[in-house]
């Protein structure tokens, strides 16, 4: 869901729409904080790495290897991975926050406190 919404939103909006979507999605749909982070991270990691990889291949890696050179001589093929990690991290963190925040507003279902 995060992947799909982000892909569509990013056609027109700047990249920061990604954490916003991740936050919202996790608020509504996540089961746990860990799962929220993981799905937020994976969705954007896949989207960004995948799209970057497609560009990388169709551009013969020309620009990626230049940017790698700019970053102290890193190989060009690392660029799609770095891309995915950056996007994934921002998205995963936002999804985590989304779940925790939603959790705070959820009615506590706390069996420990029920009177016998």
């Amino acid at each position, binding site marked *: 869901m995060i992947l799909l919404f982000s892909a569509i939103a*990013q*056609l027109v909006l*700047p*990249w*920061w729409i990604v*954490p916003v979507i991740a*936050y919202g999605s996790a608020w509504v749909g996540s089961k746990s904080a860990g799962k929220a982070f993981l799905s937020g991270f994976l969705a954007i990691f896949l989207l*960004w790495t995948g*799209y*970057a990889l497609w*560009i*990388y291949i*169709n*551009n*013969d890696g*020309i*620009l*990626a*290897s*230049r*940017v*790698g*050179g*700019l*970053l*102290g*001589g890193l190989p060009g093929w690392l*660029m799609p991975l*770095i*891309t995915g990690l*950056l*996007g994934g*991290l*921002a998205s995963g*963190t*936002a999804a*985590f*926050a*989304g779940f*925790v*925040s939603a*959790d*705070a*507003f959820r009615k506590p279902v706390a069996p420990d406190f029920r009177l016998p």
Partner: protein
Amino acid sequence: MKFLYAFLSTALAGALAFVLSISVGPLPPLATFFDPFAGFWANAETSDGKKDRTLSLSGLTAPVQVVMDNRGVPHIFAQNAYDLYFAQGYATAVDRLFQMEFGARAAAGRLSEVLGDRTLAYDRYQRNIGMAWAAENMMKAVESDAAGKLVMEAYADGVNAYINQLRARDLPVEFKLLNYRPEPWSAFKSALVSKNMQYTLTGYSDELPMSNSKMLFSAEDFDTLFPLYSPYQDPIVPDTTPFRFTPVPLPTAPEATFQPKVAAPAPQFQPDKANGSNNWAVHGSKTLSGYPILSNDMHLGNTLPAIWYEVQLNSPEVNVYGVSIPGVPTVIVGFNEQIAWGFTNVGADVMDWYEITFKDASRNEYQYEGAWLPVVNREEIIRIKGKPVFADTVKFTHHGPVAYKSGESPMFEHIPAGHALRWTAHGEENVLQAFIKLNAAQNYEAYVEAVSFLANPGQNIAYADRAGNIALYVTGKHPVRWKQQGRFVSDGSKKAYEWSSFIPHDQKPNLKNPARGFVSSANQFSADPAAYPYYLGWDFASYERGSRINQRLQEMNEITANDMRLLQMDAKSLHAQRMLPALLDAVEIDSLTEVETEAYLSLKGWDFVNRGEEMAPSVFNAWWSVFNSTVWSDEFPDGTYEWPSRPVTVKLALESPDSKWFDDKSTPATEQFRDIARIAFKKAIQNLEKNNGKPGPAWRWSKQKAYRLPNLARLPGFGVDFLETSGCSECVNATQDNHGPSWRMVVDLSPEGKAMGIYPGGQSGNPGSKNYEADIKEWAAGHLHTLYLLRSPNELPEIVHYSLLMKGN
């Protein structure tokens, strides 16, 4: 508790997103930059872009057709001048916007706004020498020149039409990297960019090192080491008989020689002294076709994106093809249906430094002819990315701005002395007029009139036309000087050191259809000082390239365009030819080690041609360089001193091998030329072996000179670190470091003759395009592309990549 977690985690996610969206230190905003939808990936070209399209651009008065050819050259067909230059601005911006914007910023001393304080010294220097002030002066001239104003404003409107439609993701990648948006373009910015080229070509000054060197020697010795006419010269105008015109009255030299206090260190950012070029035109009497051929290669410090941008401009008034400077309208060097022209730099002295004596520490008044004159203060505010603004005051005297080094402490406590700069590029002239007229010129008379407007940079302009004429005109605004005026730092308090008049255009050295059947220039002396009445300067290029070209043109006949292409690639060094036999003769073969013997033998059979794959040029150049520094380092202390030129040293070695100059003062023995040559050989081979091991592939000449094409903004990874090349700095194919032919062109003016050209790099300035570093190997190998001057958009469908139709709205 849960709300605290919620708050903390949300804050963390927000902070992370924020940090990834801003620029920290030299880094770009990371996520913004890496975002595959709108970051740098969006600049990576994934298709060949072959698609005809229609663009709706407000401002155009009539439709413009642009044919993009297979090499990405726009052929622009417009119905009037405004639309023509509008489209030139638009098309250039599509390919080179960052280069244009960066060039204008660099000229104005505004790099620190986007690069931070690492460029503060550079920005201060640009403001101190009055670059923006010079551009303002140029704009004053533009205001009173309706045609020039129209061209510049149309160009700016075209650039802005492109800038205005750019979304963040469409910005050139360098803007994303440096995290800023381009400002609107303007005619003033075009003026700034043209000042850059003027500085590159005429901003060299050796008055301070010359003043220092002069203090070291007796007058006689000084004349030996620094002759006013460089040895072995083969001047542009070869006549030794006096010129026939009546010169304007020459000023008289002051009686006493001024001893400069030399208070300020040398200006920091000297343009490369090796900025040189070649051009020539051969008459029909020497060509196979019976029609003239023109050749030009302009040598500059090459970068990626390339210095030049190819374009064809076609309107009812003009049909011209050639190279333009991104940021400046018109074609600078090229050809039209009737004529072709090419440039080399004149190299005359048009920049003088005046020592200023201030009245007191406020530096608001300065001494002039027994009185105190007020300075005009110009406030300079330099904005620095991530730092507080830097405020500076530049003092203007009637000579020009006082340039002083940043952080400089005055030499004398009460009379701080800086140096004022007088430079022809400061003048109120619109040099663009020269190009507007030259682009449209159809004959010799129109060419001579057009080039009279080129005040700075003065160029030796070779010319050929379809009517069969060849010509060469030494152009530029040149002060009428007393002999040696401006050779040393001048006295700013005396009128006698000022410029009072300029050489009339018709009295500048020039040639038309000379008997020898060719004209040529390679930045050498414009004319023999014994024959030409005006003193133009003394530090012209040494003889090697010019003599080699003249030698070859003299002996060639039935010349074809391909012969001219080969001559552009000529890598024979006349310096090596003249010097090497004497050097080799000094070596004692019996005392050589194995490596030295191998190096020696490589030189024994060498034909003085600097081929990239050979080791002989590496050995010779290393040897000469060590020899030269061994000869002179004991005469000159460390610091800012001018050393004798290469031909002067050669002449002394060949004609006075036992003179005192060859004695190494640091040893008790008395050395002669042979001793120094021998010592230098051993030392040079030692250096080569230390850095490259035993003779092998690393000793190849191409490896030793390590030709490269750095990125314009010196971004690592955005340039080319090594390119296999032949040639040498004093060769016709003058390649060294990143310096070399920036545009090679051969135009055959016979009815079916074609034009050819190449520059190192591609039309696209986008580092994400395959076209960014296109053609650099072809350039290195001496290949030339055919250049097409189309008469209509549909003339040659086979060269068309795609078409653009630009329409007003």
